[in-house]
C-alpha cells in the first residue's frame, strides 16, 4: 500500500507550517508532495494536508480542484496533458491528440488498462513557440510529430518495465 507521505516528510511540513504566518501558502507544495508519493491526491490526502496546515479540508479542496495538474482522481503512471489551445491547434494539435488516442487505444480522460498512461486535455502549457506540445508528468515535449510521439511512448514503456 502506497503511503500519502513519509512520516519524516509530514514532520518536516508540520515544522515548517509552525514557522509560517500563513501556513496555507504551502498548500500546493503539500499537494504535490502527496501526488509524487501516491500518484494522485485522494480524499485522505486533502484531509492530511488540511491537518498539517491547520485549515478546514474545504480550503485545501478549493485549491486542489482548481488546478488541473493536481489529480483528484486516480491517473496512470504517466499522465499526458495534450494542449488544445490555439497555437497548438494551428500547428497540428488535433492530429497529435488523435494519434495518441489511437496509439494508446483510449479516449481523452481515460487511462490505459495497464495503468501506464492517462490522456488529459489542457488549455495551454506555455510552450506556444514549440507547438504542438504535450506534457508527461512534469516533462515538457514540443515540436511534436506523430513519429516523435511514438518514440516518446516507446521510451516511457521501456522505462516502466526497467
Amino acid at each position: 500500500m502506497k503511503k500519502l507521505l513519509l512520516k519524516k516528510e509530514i514532520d518536516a511540513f508540520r515544522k515548517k507550517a509552525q514557522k509560517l504566518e500563513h501556513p496555507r501558502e504551502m498548500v500546493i507544495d503539500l499537494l504535490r508532495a502527496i501526488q509524487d508519493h501516491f500518484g494522485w491526491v485522494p480524499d485522505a490526502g486533502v484531509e492530511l494536508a488540511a491537518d498539517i496546515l491547520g485549515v478546514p479540508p474545504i480550503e485545501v479542496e478549493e485549491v486542489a480542484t482548481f488546478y488541473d495538474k493536481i489529480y483528484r482522481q486516480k491517473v496512470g503512471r504517466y499522465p499526458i496533458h495534450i494542449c488544445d489551445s490555439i497555437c497548438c491547434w494551428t500547428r497540428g494539435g488535433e492530429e497529435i491528440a488523435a494519434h495518441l488516442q489511437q496509439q494508446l487505444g483510449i479516449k481523452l480522460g481515460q487511462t490505459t488498462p495497464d495503468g501506464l498512461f492517462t490522456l488529459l486535455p489542457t488549455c495551454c502549457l506555455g510552450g506556444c513557440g514549440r507547438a504542438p506540445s504535450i506534457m508527461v508528468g512534469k516533462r515538457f515535449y514540443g515540436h511534436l510529430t506523430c513519429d516523435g510521439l511514438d518514440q516518446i511512448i516507446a521510451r516511457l514503456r521501456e522505462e516502466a518495465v526497467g
Partner: protein
Amino acid sequence: MPTLTIDNQIITVAEGASVLDAAVALGIVVPHFCYHHTLGAIGACRQCAVTILEGSQKGLKMSCLIAVEDGMVVSTCEEESVAFRGQVSEWLMTNHPHDCPVCDEGGECQLQEMTIGAGHGIRRYRGNKRTYTNQDLGPFITQEMNRCIQCYRCVRTYKDYCGGEDFGVMGSQQRVFFGRFKDGPLESDFSGNLIDFCPTGVFTDRANRFRTRSWDLQQAPSICPHCSLGCSTFPGGRYQELQRVRSGGNRLTNDSFICDRARFGSDWNNHPKRPREARISGEKVEFSYALELLEERLEKLVEEYGGEALRLLGSPRASFEANLLLKNLAEKYGAPAPYYDAHPRRAFAARMAASIPSGQLASLKQLRDSDLILMVGVDPLAEAPVLALALRQAARAGTRIVALDPRPLELPCDFEHHPLTQESLLRGLSAPEENELLESLRQQLEASQRPVLVGGGELLGGEGLRLLLHFSESCCGSHDCLIFPVLHGPNSFGGGILGATGDSNRNLIEDLENGNVRALICVETDPAIEHSEPGRMQLALSRLEFLAVFDHLPTNTVATADIFLPTRTIYECAGTFINNEGRMQAFDPVLEPGIPIVVTGSGGHPPRQFETTPPGSAPRSAVHLLQWLLKDRNDLFGLRRQIVKELPCLRDLDRLEAGDNGRRIADCGDKLEESRTEIWAQEGELQVLPITARYGSDLYSRWSQSLTSRFEEPSVWIHPVEAAERGFVNGQKVVLRTVVGHFHLPLVFKAKMARGRLIVPCLPGTPLEVFTPGGLSLPCKIYSEVDNA
C-alpha cells in the same frame, strides 16, 4: 453629499454610495445578482451595467462598483447597456435549467425577475447544459447545483459574513461547484441564510420542499421569539400551518440575517400536542364557559380572602400588551403587582437592564460599528446567536473583542478569551480597580472611540449588570461606553420596565409557600420549567387552591392547571416585544389559529364536517383574554395609546408598525437603586454551572421537532487539568451529585473553560432538563461510576 441624475431623475445620496444604491433609492430597477448591501459589491455577475454620460469615468460601467460623484449623469436605458445586460443574462441562462415549474424558488426568484428585467425572454441556445451531482447538506437545506449561476453570493454569505468553515467553492470554469468537502449537514449556526441569499433555487428549504408556492403563502412581518435580540423575521404559512421563517430586514438590528434556531425552529407552532381547547381540571370545555368560570372563581376568591390571596405571573414570552394588562388585572382585584419572569434572578436582570438610560444602550448596528468590545458573561451562540454575527462584522473591520466567561466559548471570529469563573467575574466587577485585567481593559475602553460592553443577564444576574453599569460609567472617556445587555426572552426588557415599579423584594415561590396565596394565574409561562428550582416550584404549585394557565405550549403545568385557556402564538395575533436594547417592535398575525389541514385531512382533502369554525380555532390572544376579564373594549391601537398615557417612556408605542425598524424607548426616569446580596462561592470549591445549550434551552426550541437533530448529547464538562488532578479521563462515565439529584453522565474535556468548575448544558428531554440556566453555580460532588458503586 453628491447629487446626480439617473434617467433624468435627480437624487442626492451619501458620499461613497454606489450608482446602484442611488438607482435603487430612486426605485429604478438595475438587474444585479452578486451585489447585496450587507455583502458589498464585487462586480462579478456583470449584470448591473449602466452608461455613465457625465462623470470622471464615462461609458459602460458596472453600477455597483462606481461611486457616485457630484454632477454625474447616468442612463440605465442607453442601447449599449441594455444590450449588454441582455447578453449577460443570456449567457447566465445557457446553463440554467428551465425547471421553474418544479423549483421552490419560483415566484420569488431574483434570477427570474432579473432575466425578464434584463430583457432576455427567449432562449436561443439549444445545446447540452452542464450538470452536477448534488450533495446532501443535512436536514435543513436541499442543494440543486444545476441551477447555479456562479454569483458567489453563497460563499460570501456563509464564509465571509457568517464565518462558516465547511462550505466553499471548488473547481474552475464550467465545473465550479459550491458545497462542502464531503456530503453532510452544514455546521454553521447560520446556514439557513443561504436560502435567503441564493438569488435562485440552488439552496432551498428542505422541510418545505414542493409544498407551497410563495404567492400562496400568508405572510406578515414579525419578530423572532427565540431570544432577547428581537430579530426581524418574515414568517409564512398556509392552511393553518406555519411553514417557514425568513429573515426580515431591520438594518438597526439583525440586518438581513437570522440564526438557524429562528429559521428552522418554528414548528412548535404546529406541535401535534399543542393545547387548543379550554380545559377545566383536564376536561375539555367550551372556551367561554372556562373564561366565565375563571372570572367567577376569581371574584369569589377575592371576596373571601382579599386580593392578597391572588398572584399573577407574566412572561418574557408574552407580548408587552399582555404583560401590561396583567398589571391592570392585579389592580382590579387588589392583588400585588404581577411577576414578569418566573425566574427571580432573570427577572432582576431584566429590571436592571431596563433601568439603564436609553442613550447608553447599544443596538446591534452600533455593536457592528464598534471599535472595542468587551463581553462579560455571554455565550452569544447559545444566548443570542445573531450577536455572534454582529461581533464577526466588527472583528472583520479590525475591532478587538475580549470575552470574560467561564464557558468554553466559540465565536465565528477571532477573540481573546479569559476563562474566569462566574464568581470571580462578579467579584472582579464589584471592585474593578483592584483587578489588574479589568483595570487595563477599563483604560483601553476609555481610550476607544466607540466601545461597547456586552453583559449576559443569565450569568451576571441583575447584581452583575448593576456592577457592569457602574464599570461602564468609569470607562466613559471622551465618548460614552455603551452597554448591550443580553436577556432571556423576547420581552424580558418589557417585563423589566413593568417590574421596576413593583416591590422588588418579593419572591413568588416564598409567596406560594407561606400559604396565604390561594390562586395563581400564569400567562404564557411555565414556572415549573422556568423557575430556578423547578422541583420546589412544582410542589408549591400543587398546593394552590386553583391554578389558571393561559398558554400555547404543551407544558406539564398546562396539563395540571385547574383552568386552562389556550392562547394564540405570536404568529396568530398582533403585539409588541421590547428587545434587549429597549427597542419596541411590533409583530402582525400571519395565520388564523387552527389545526393544520395537513393534520385534519391526513394529507388529503380536509374532513367534510360542516361547522362554522375550523377545528382547533378556539385560542384567543392573551391580550383578548385579559381584556375580557378587565372589560376593556379597546382595540390594539387604543390599548397602545392608553399605555402611552400611563408610561410616557413608551411614547412612540402607538406609532409602531410591524416591519418597521422599531422605536427605542425613552428614558424611564427613575434609576433603579435595587441591589441584592448574592453569596458567591469561593474559588477552589467544586461547583457546577448549568448553562444555556445552543439548541433546546429556550422553550420554543424545546418544542421544535425540526431542531432535535442539533441537540447535543447530555454530558458534564471539565477542564483537563482539573480532571487530571482528580484522575479522570476524557469520555469517562461519572456520577454528578447535586442538590437537584444525581446524574450519570460522560465527562467531556474542554480546554478553554474555567478551572475549578463543572459545566452542564441544560437539555430538554434528558435528565439534565431539571437544571435551569440563569442562576449561580451549585455545590456538587463528582465520582467515577466505578467508585460510586
